[in-house]
């Protein structure tokens, strides 16, 4: 009747292939997330592009004209203001996508509809769920930054050759942030405005003080630290170097890379541990 290749377990034919199920666990979770996202495609595109494009038009084009007028066509870091701004806008859009994928969906899984507990009732583990959310976040980041990069390219902000490296830097920042955010959210028991706080006191300052609109060095030292711990700055500085050869101190590229990788790993370790604990209660 049913023709799935069967494996033997306890002497009886079984339809679940354990090895396959465990290896691919995160991908099954990601498949679900993507299917859910596909129902909201319009909203995802609108929100993913809406804010960033507004920034591009108002700051990039508007303020850019003013800056270029006073500094000359290549007056900021040796390039036009729009080119200077583009890596930061891409990194920010990746982080927004990461935030969307790791905040409310995580609370939903643990608290609202308890879907994580249903996933965990199958052979999926807390680790598979964390992995699946990260894959889905990566997909969302690629999707959002990919479209945004096209828009930036259409406005002449970036060159076609730099698209891939810029997307790489932005997604790296997005995933690093997703990882930390996932770890933080896995401890949240009620909404209680936690995400509003994150939006106001983490995302907003991160966006404004990460050398986004002007070089980080322009800020007084007591504000520069915000950039140092911000994935946006690390990804932006890295993206500027990779796309138009922005000067960085020797070893700085390694630090950018290591910083993003470090918070990515720490976030994963904490998230996996807390997911497993919370599901095993």
């Amino acid at each position: 009747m049913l023709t799935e290749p069967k494996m033997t377990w306890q002497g009886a034919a079984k339809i679940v292939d354990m090895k396959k199920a465990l290896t691919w666990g995160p991908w099954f979770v990601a498949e679900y997330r993507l299917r859910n996202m596909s129902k909201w495609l319009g909203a995802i595109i609108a929100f993913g592009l809406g804010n960033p494009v507004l920034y591009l038009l108002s700051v990039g084009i508007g303020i850019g004209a003013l800056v270029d007028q006073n500094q000359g066509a290549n007056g900021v870091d040796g390039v036009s203001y729009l080119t200077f701004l583009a890596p930061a806008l891409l990194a920010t859009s990746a982080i927004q996508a990461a935030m969307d994928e790791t905040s409310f969906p995580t609370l939903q899984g643990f608290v609202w509809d308890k879907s994580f507990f249903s996933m965990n009732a199958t052979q999926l583990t807390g680790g598979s769920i964390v992995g699946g959310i990260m894959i889905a976040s990566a997909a969302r980041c690629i999707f959002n930054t990919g479209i945004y990069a096209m828009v930036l390219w259409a406005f002449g902000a970036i060159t076609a050759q730099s698209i891939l490296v810029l997307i790489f830097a932005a997604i790296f920042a997005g995933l690093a942030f997703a990882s930390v955010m996932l770890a933080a959210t896995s401890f949240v028991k009620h909404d209680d405005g936690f995400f509003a706080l994150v939006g106001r006191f983490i995302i907003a300052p991160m966006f404004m003080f990460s050398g986004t609109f002007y070089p980080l060095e322009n800020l007084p030292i007591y504000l520069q630290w915000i950039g140092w711990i911000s994935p946006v700055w690390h990804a932006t500085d890295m993206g500027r170097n990779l796309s138009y050869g922005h000067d960085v101190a020797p070893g700085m590229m390694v630090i950018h890379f290591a910083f993003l990788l470090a918070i990515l790993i720490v976030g994963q370790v904490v998230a996996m541990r807390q997911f497993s604990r919370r599901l095993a209660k």
Partner: protein
Amino acid sequence: MGNAFKEESTELAKKTAPADLMIVAKGLTKKYDDFTAVDGIDFQVKRGESFGLLGPNGAGKSTTMKMIGATSLRTGGELTILGKDPNKQGPEIRAHLGVVPQTDNHDNDLKAWENLYIYGRYFGLGRKFLKKKVEELLDFAQLQDKRDVKVDQLSGGMKRRLTIARGLVNEPEILMLDEPTTGLDPQARHILWDRLFRLKEEGVTLVITTHYMDEAEQLCDRLIVMDKGKIMAEGAPADLIKKYSSKEVLEVRFGSSKNAEAAEKLKHLGDRIETLPDRILFYAEDGEKVLKQIHKLGFEPATSLVRRSSLEDVFLRLTGRTLVE
């Protein structure tokens, strides 16, 4: 040397014996900090059996279910499910369980068929296989005409049937149902019971928690009554009634103010008497006979009713009538 051999042979016994023992719990315990939710319980469930967990709120049923479901880790005692230790081999065990949680938690944005399909994907089942399986399950749950409807537009009974169908997608050896019919209307309950009977006939082992005693009598071959984390009684519904109640119960009412006074004078009648604020219950082999004796003693109850003893009488006797919040 001798010891080593002995150990090896018990290892072998462990591997071969459980073929027909699906669940074995010995001294099973779950503690949360200083609160003991499940306090050293013993039970076994055989292949094809339909096993019930009864008890008031907070008795430890759901915690026990979660431990059998190989998600919640036990803090003491032994538990073997399908011959494996859930604290160590959770995923291996869960791959062969079907779980119907207390609350339906489908993705409301997805259609009915998509929810079944996605759940099958969690088990790593192939797309081609699932296409067929999903249709089979929709038929089973009588939801074929709701196939392409978003879940948030289904009624409570439909969602419940969808959850049960979802629990069957991996062709589980044990299907676990946590209060399967709570909140459903009588029609929906009876449809569900019918589906569960069919599964039982197909040899699926069922583990059920419920608050409804009629449901337990209908569905369970054997059950345990839990209270405060402990097992109060174990057995087949009919045996439990025999053991903890009488064949019949006579319920008489003299009016709220007179019940206690009448009970004092009638307490020698029947096997056992229970005085409630609104009525007096006589547990007896023959309810009519007791009623006649009451009349003979010159008492005229306002109303009287003789009924068969039920699991509910057993339940209330074992777990008390005090409200548990």
